């Protein structure tokens, strides 16, 4: 049986279009609305698809290739779907000194993610290693979705993850 391609549903319609228009008031150029617009797409869809890049390009008067160039520059924009809970763990020097590698191991083990960057088979978690999260005195910090969590140790990982089902 042939699968019909799912039609792309635009992000910037109705209230969201109005919200984007309000954001655009802050800048003298439409192009400057690109980073905020990409954040809006990611909040709505969880990631930024090629179709979404085409849409935002049309809305802001840019080319899709230009938009892709910007999306690929910034590490926080997802170019593919990620788990329900997206976990970013800092392993840069200060955190590394304080045992961040153990936190990474505990996270991988507890979430069932086979490796960094992979999503767990149940689709609940994706764990990625990131560079300095700017909370070096509170090693090891994690960002789970929008929750910034400090002082994580391998021992506190199991309890912490219970809050993310």
């Amino acid at each position, binding site marked *: 049986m042939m699968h019909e391609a799912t039609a792309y549903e635009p992000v910037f319609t109705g209230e969201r279009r109005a919200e984007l228009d309000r954001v655009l008031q802050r800048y*003298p150029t439409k192009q400057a609305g690109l980073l905020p617009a990409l954040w809006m797409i990611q909040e709505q869809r969880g990631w930024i698809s090629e179709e979404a890049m085409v849409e935002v390009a049309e809305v802001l008067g840019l080319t899709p290739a230009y938009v892709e160039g*910007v999306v690929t520059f*910034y590490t*926080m924009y997802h170019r593919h779907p990620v788990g329900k809970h997206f976990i970013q763990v800092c392993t840069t020097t200060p955190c590394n000194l304080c045992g961040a590698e153990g936190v990474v191991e505990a996270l991988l083990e507890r979430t069932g993610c086979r490796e960094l960057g992979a999503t767990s088979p149940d689709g609940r978690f994706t764990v990625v290693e990131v560079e300095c999260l700017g909370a*070096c*005195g509170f090693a090891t910090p994690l960002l789970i979705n929008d*929750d910034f969590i400090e002082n994580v140790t391998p021992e506190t990982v199991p309890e912490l993850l219970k809050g993310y089902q």
Partner: protein
Amino acid sequence: MGYPHKPHPNETVVLSEHFGDAEARSYDGWVQRGGYEALKKALAMEPPAVIDEVKAAGLRGRGGAGFPAGVKWDFMPKKKTQPHYLCCNADESEPGTFKDREIMRWTPHGLIEGCLIAAHAIRAETVYIYIRGEFTEAIAIMERALAEAYDRGALGKRVMGSEVAIDMYVHRGAGAYICGEETALMNSIEGKRGNPRIRPPFPAAVGVFSKPTTINNVETLASVPHILNRGAAWYKSLCLSNPKSTGTKLMSVCGHIAKPGNYEVTMGFPMKDLIYDLCGGMQPGRTLKAVIPGGSSVPVLNREEAEGCVLDYEGCVEKGTMLGSGGMIVFDDSADMVYQMMRIAKFYAHESCAQCTQCREGTGWTVRILQKILAGEGALQDLDLLLDIGEQMTGKTICVLSDSCAAPVGSAIRKFRGEFEAYINGARRPVAVAV
């Protein structure tokens, strides 16, 4: 330590006075603590008089470069013929640094007030606070505070009922260390990749949206209301060593230390006292090996140098390093300097915007050569090769990211050569590192 906690008696509490006090976050709470008085004072002054006051205070950029803030403001065109912009650099991403986050989390109105005074001084009608995308809490707090400030008339068409109009917005970054570099930051606001720009032209002439722009760090701007309130002479008197370094500095201390956290000290404070007194020294049974004092981008100090170092711009230069952003990474005797330098180089290789060859290739080569050494497959000439690459990476690129990778690695090879040689001659067991 996280807040709230009582400051150490030897701290000079100015910026951090209300850290940990959640009530200081609201507009009313800030006003009750004396907030927005400095703004009223500044609005009653002509812009050049505000600039003179900040110049007289000797306030220098707290983001890393240490350039005098008032002088920077004075670079803006005297005659205003087009829009002027102020950008607040809240892209705090320098490994070891976590002070701006606390300023935004606890005293958002202090930062807004500082931005307003600076905007008035440089006659900017728009301020962008560029906050790194990962600082979700700081972004939410700043957004709330901005909405409140608009409601209460501290922002908008008539700031505090005056004739001055200033708008202020948060611009959220999306994960790129390089956007903390001021010209990359401006590109990022414009909706571009965060590639640094060639200077000249300097931002004061051609900045964001090609208009005259000043970019200041969070801590710099948050210091401004205190200068207006208490006077340049008071600020200048906060000085323990060189009169060119005045005021207080938030030092972020992390790594192998008993009590990591932010500590606010007067410029010229001895690093030894910060480490052993305020921070409680090393963890039990450990001794100090090295310190990177200004965020990971600066040369590493060995124990002797660190213990003799005075924390101000000149004091750090005297020891061959830099005060930078004040992000101190402490290494004890258990630290593997070879591995840690590889980890630092990996950071820069990851964060290079890849415009300049020296940086794009040099950071990657540095990582791979260090990994080869760690794997026990290095040769003595690799150390000279690393130093040579480091030299080619220094002073030759559009921005200083490349230099920032070469500085810690080169200094570590010179100061801890024995540790590198131990991997090369087999005295130390190889470390498997994923390449």
